[in-house]
């Protein structure tokens, strides 16, 4: 007696890859702009990054309808926070809010794989990485999405400090300069695009630092 399973799924995967790297006084959040479904490209020009607060940006890959709904929810909650506290939400606070929002739908999850990047209370870069139901961790760098399995080992090789057994525990942030981190991100995406069919078209990079927020674009392979 085998159970009959639904032929219709409420989810779809629109592909894409997101990366975030935290520096001493900056944070880089990047994502490709390709939106796909199956073997088709829906659009080459879709932003997966949203600026939630002055010093906080979120990149999400997965099911973009759920991502959009999640972004709207967080933006609304941030607005309420600003009315009640007369200030912007800090990145660690936003990180906790995102986690709670995701877990709230534990039994019908947002099909969204998020990385949150920004500057913490002291102006240092911080990156938070999530799974679909809200488990999160503060890290120095992270990647999510279809190309993450290709990018993460490379970032581990370039950014991860040697084993904590050998050296005193190091800071989570990378010692790289902002331009070096940008070079690394661009290399990651150019390489992931070569081997992952769901990543490509264009790369959108958001850089948050003391001076404010800056957006940069780079062309990727379109095949």
């Amino acid at each position: 007696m085998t159970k009959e399973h639904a032929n219709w799924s409420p989810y779809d995967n629109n592909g894409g890859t997101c990366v975030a790297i935290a520096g001493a006084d900056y944070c880089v959040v990047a994502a490709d702009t390709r939106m796909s479904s199956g073997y088709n490209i829906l659009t080459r020009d879709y932003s997966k990054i949203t600026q939630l607060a002055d010093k906080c940006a979120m990149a999400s890959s997965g099911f973009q309808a759920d991502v959009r709904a999640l972004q709207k929810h967080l933006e609304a909650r941030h607005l309420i926070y600003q009315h009640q506290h007369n200030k912007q939400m800090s990145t660690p606070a936003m990180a906790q809010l995102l986690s709670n929002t995701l877990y709230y739908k534990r039994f019908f999850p947002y099909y969204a794989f998020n990385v949150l990047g920004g500057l913490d209370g002291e102006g240092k870069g911080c990156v938070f990485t999530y799974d679909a139901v809200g488990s999160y961790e503060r890290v120095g760098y992270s990647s999510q999405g279809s190309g993450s399995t290709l990018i993460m080992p490379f970032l581990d090789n370039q950014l991860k400090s040697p084993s904590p057994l050998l050296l005193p525990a190091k800071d989570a942030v990378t010692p790289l300069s902002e331009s070096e981190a940008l070079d690394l991100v661009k290399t990651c995406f150019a390489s992931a695009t070569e081997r992952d069919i769901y990543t490509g078209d264009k790369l959108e990079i958001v850089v948050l630092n003391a001076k404010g927020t800056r957006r940069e674009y780079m062309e990727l392979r379109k095949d």
Partner: protein
Amino acid sequence: MSKSAIDGPTKGGFSFDLCRRNEMLVKKGLKGPSFLKTGTTIVGLVFQDGVILGADTRATEGPIVADKNCEKIHYIAPNIYCCGAGTAADTEAVTDMVSSQLTLHRYHTGRESRVVTALTLLKSHLFSYQGYVSAALVLGGVDVTGPHLHTIYPHGSTDTLPFATMGSGSLAAMAVFESKYCEGLTRDEGVQLVAEAISSGIFNDLGSGSNVDICVLTKGHKEYLRNHLQPNPRTYISQKGSFSKKTEVLLTKITPLNKLVEVIEGGDAMEE
């Protein structure tokens, strides 16, 4: 299942003896092996002097690109070539097999091979495997009877067409052909149209990508244009030049081998 005398000698075809055991294993949770598919765009068209075949060069394993520049236009005979879509091992094996059969046939008959011969050998092989040999082919060539273009489906059916497309990018390519094809194209017009159709597949289908390969077949002459177009260069090369950080060494331990083995000085030499 034993073969009784009435069945006669085992002919070709697939033996379904293990199917019940495979089903039982799947029910117990075994995941079948995955295949390397070419997720492809392949095309062919007939022009005034012969046949032009085209293909992309991406081979995929699910969502990952396994080979960025593979060859999908296979040699069958000096005057016959075949593009292959589907499982890479199947297209490779079936075209190699028919190619060697045709070589022997040429020695036997003393004549140039005909496209319909390759067609019949391929379709009967694929039919006898009931679609389990997952090869979708575009076969083209020029022989004494003229230029020919055929499509062959994994189950063994064939079509004879003036222009054809196969693979996951076939709709993108066919859209181009249906808009722009006409009879009596010149060589340059034909190559241009084939390149456009393959490019359409490369850019609009995620299963196809990288470069365009083209093969022009005319009476007594063939031109294999490998990587005729390369519209997808790498977009960014790091300013650093090279990434020097290698896998870190945590521990080095040297064990001299002569402590582990017995060394006999001047022992018997090894046998040849």
